[in-house]
Structure formats: C-alpha cells, structure tokens
C-alpha cells in the first residue's frame, strides 16, 4: 500500500461521523503546542499522526534524564538536545505531510500575543502556573480557544477554554481559579508523577483538539474535567463564564506572569556545580530537601528540611564555608538569602540550579 495521505488516514476518513470533511478540517488547522514535556509529547504525536496540517512546538528546555520516564518519545540519545526540535524530528518521521515548526523559546508577557496570534487554537502543555495564566489570558485577548491540561501526582485536569459558542465565549481558567497563586503548592521539590496520568491527560487534550477542529462530539466546554488515576474517578465540574475579556485586559496590565520562585538570584550567593566539585571537602554542606529518602550525589554534613528551616534557630561557625543544596536551587537560595540577613559577612552559598543539574 502506497504512502500517501489517503491511505494514511483511511481509518479515520472511513468513519461516517468524521469522513473526508473532518480530515480536511484537520489538514487546514494551524495549532501551537506550548510545552513539549509530559503532556506535549503525546499531544503532538497523536495530533501529528491524525493529520493536523500545521503545528508549532514551543519549549525553552532541553531533554533531561529524569524526563524520560514520562516523556516517552524522547530517547536516551536525545538527552541535552532541545525538546521542541527532538519532538519535531519524531513527528516528521511518523507523518511526512505535517508542517512542523519547533521553537526553543520561553513565552513571556512581552512575546506571547505576537507569538500566538497566528494560530487557530492553542494547547497548554506547560508545567508552570504563571505560564498557564499567561496562556489563558493571551488566548482570551486573542479570542482563541485554549485546550488546557495539567496534573499533580495522580490527578489531572482537562478543559476546552474560551471556545466561541452561540452563548458567547465559554469558561476559562480564571472562572475556576481566579487568581495566580502567590505561593505555589508545593514549590521547589517537584513532586513527580506516575506516567499513565500524564498520558491520559495528554490524550484527552488531543481528543479535545480533534473534537473542536472537526466539530465532532461535545468538547469540554463550561466544564473542568478532573481525573484521579488511582481509582479512575472522573468528575466533570460545571462552571459559569464570568471572567470576561474586559476583566482579563485589566489583569493583563497588572500581572507580570513571572514565577515568583524564579526571581533573579544574586551571583555572589551562588556556587556552580563545577566549583563545588573542584573545591570538594572545603564546604559544610546543608541539604534543605524535604524527602528524607532522596539520595544525593555527594555527602552532606547536615539536613534541615526546608519546612523546618528557621534562620533564627541556626548558629553558623564564622570560620566555615557553607553551601545549601536542594533539588532545583530555589529553596536552597531562599535559605541562603535568609541567613545572609543574619550573617552578612559569612561565606554562604546556594548550589546554582540545584542537584538536578549537578
């Protein structure tokens, strides 16, 4: 059987509910997938295989070892390469008719509207709360549907936001969660997940994209679907569209959409992995990781789980040099900066970018 579009999609076009008409709608669609990790992997792959015409992939990050357990389209040989490019490469090999454009970049308030305005539909596969609000608000300002997905451990959420309906635009993220939480729960220590819920949520997003574009079935409109993979409990929470475009315009002006946890860190208070390896043994190392079973790649002198960390109760020895460490270098920096208030002249450092990048 020849490799052509007709043969490639025959198991879809043969469906009377979908047919050649549905296939044509997919082929004419131009969508953007923001985030090429656990959600972006299956969303992009299944949508590419289904015959979406044009797909842009956006991710600022590179493939890491610890991604592979849930980002199953990445191979060990891809470690260190930009996620968007690696994913695009796979998509080209499964569907040569796809027009795919990978972009290694971070979406910000400054570039979001310009970047997103050319698409019919936006898929949120990011793993950052401020970016999720940035995408939500940008989608509303641009009058575009947003296919939302997110998860925590064993639970996932999915919805089709801001779809134009006869009754106006449908609900958006702020109808369920009005404000960007200031303190993310939980913060630094990424809690992890088992991979099936990541795939389930991603596939449900792909399903929404196909439903919306081919005008088939009932998309998750004015609904937030909640799935618990531990007991297969599903809720579909009905919402009311209240937060409208005018409100979002005001919020857009007020918000920076930056991750409060990723504030600029002072270089003087940081130590690189390189430097720490070179000067091994010269530091008193304190871990502020919560998980007592987390195995560190080096010996530490002390462990103070960050929740119990209180600079008032800590006495440091002025003749020693201290290094605080955690997984991502965020809580360790917070500990360092608190102690710098108490001991401004002491040698106290935070391991830059954390143990994950050691």
């Amino acid at each position, binding site marked *: 059987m020849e490799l052509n579009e007709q043969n490639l999609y025959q198991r879809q076009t043969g469906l009377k509910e979908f047919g050649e008409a549905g296939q044509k709608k997919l082929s004419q669609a131009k969508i953007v997938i923001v985030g090429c990790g*656990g959600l972006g992997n299956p969303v992009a792959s299944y949508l590419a295989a289904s015959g979406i015409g044009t797909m842009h992939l956006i991710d600022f990050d590179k493939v890491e070892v610890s991604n592979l357990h849930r980002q199953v389209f990445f191979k060990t040989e891809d470690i260190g390469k930009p996620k968007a490019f690696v994913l695009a490469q796979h998509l080209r090999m499964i569907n040569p008719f796809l027009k795919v454009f990978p972009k290694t970049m971070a979406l910000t308030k400054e570039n979001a509207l310009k970047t997103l305005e050319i698409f019919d539909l936006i898929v949120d596969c990011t*793993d950052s709360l401020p970016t999720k609000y940035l995408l939500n608000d940008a989608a509303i300002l641009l009058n575009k549907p947003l296919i939302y997905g997110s998860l925590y451990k064993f639970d996932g959420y999915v919805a089709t936001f801001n779809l134009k309906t006869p009754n106006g635009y449908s609900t958006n993220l702020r109808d*369920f969660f009005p404000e960007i939480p200031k303190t993310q729960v939980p913060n630094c220590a990424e809690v992890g997940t088992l991979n099936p819920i990541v795939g389930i949520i991603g596939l449900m997003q792909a399903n929404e994209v196909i439903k919306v574009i081919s005008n088939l079935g009932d998309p998750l409109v004015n609904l*937030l679907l909640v799935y618990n993979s531990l007991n297969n409990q599903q809720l579909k929470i009905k919402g009311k569209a209240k937060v409208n475009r005018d409100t979002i315009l005001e919020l857009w002006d007020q918000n920076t959409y930056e991750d409060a946890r990723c504030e600029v860190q002072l270089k003087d208070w940081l130590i690189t992995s390189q430097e720490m390896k070179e000067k091994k043994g010269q530091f008193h190392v304190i871990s502020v990781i919560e998980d007592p079973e987390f195995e560190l790649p080096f010996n530490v002198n002390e462990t103070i789980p960050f929740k119990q960390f209180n600079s008032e109760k800590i006495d440091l020895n002025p003749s020693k040099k201290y290094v605080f460490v955690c997984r991502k270098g965020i809580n360790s920096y917070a500990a360092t900066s608190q102690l710098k208030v108490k001991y401004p002249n002491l040698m106290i450092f935070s391991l830059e970018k954390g143990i994950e990048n050691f």
Partner: protein
Amino acid sequence: MKIKTLFFGVARDIVGKDELLIDVQGNTTIQDFEARLLNQYPDFSDIRNFAFAVNESYVDRNYSIQKNDLIAVLPPVSGG
C-alpha cells in the same frame, strides 16, 4: 449532617485521604467550610486559591451547604 468530601491533588496529600465524611451544621457556607479545613489542617495555607465544587458544579464561597451535597476540593495544579 455528614457531607462527603473528595480531595484532589495536594489537598489529598494534606488530608491523607481520597475522601472524608465531614460533619457540618446547617447554614454552613463554603467559606465557613474552608476556614474549618484550614483550622484543622494548617497545611491548607493556600486554600483561598482552591476551587470548590458541589455535585459537580463550581460554587462560590457564599454557597450554603445542603444535605446530601458531594463536595470536591480542587487545588490549582501545575504539572505538565
């Protein structure tokens, strides 16, 4: 009245269970319910950012809990 309450995401971590039967007086609003959870579980420090659903519908904080309601406690989630 005993109100069946489901906990998702980090709310399940805090409570340690998928669901609880919580004894509630008449005229209890979601706002009261939220305060009570925070009081009982101080780790719910971000609960003001959570969504509450009753019988699979999103409700405002002034909703008054009725007999046989099924409450879902839904924190914002950010994984991807």
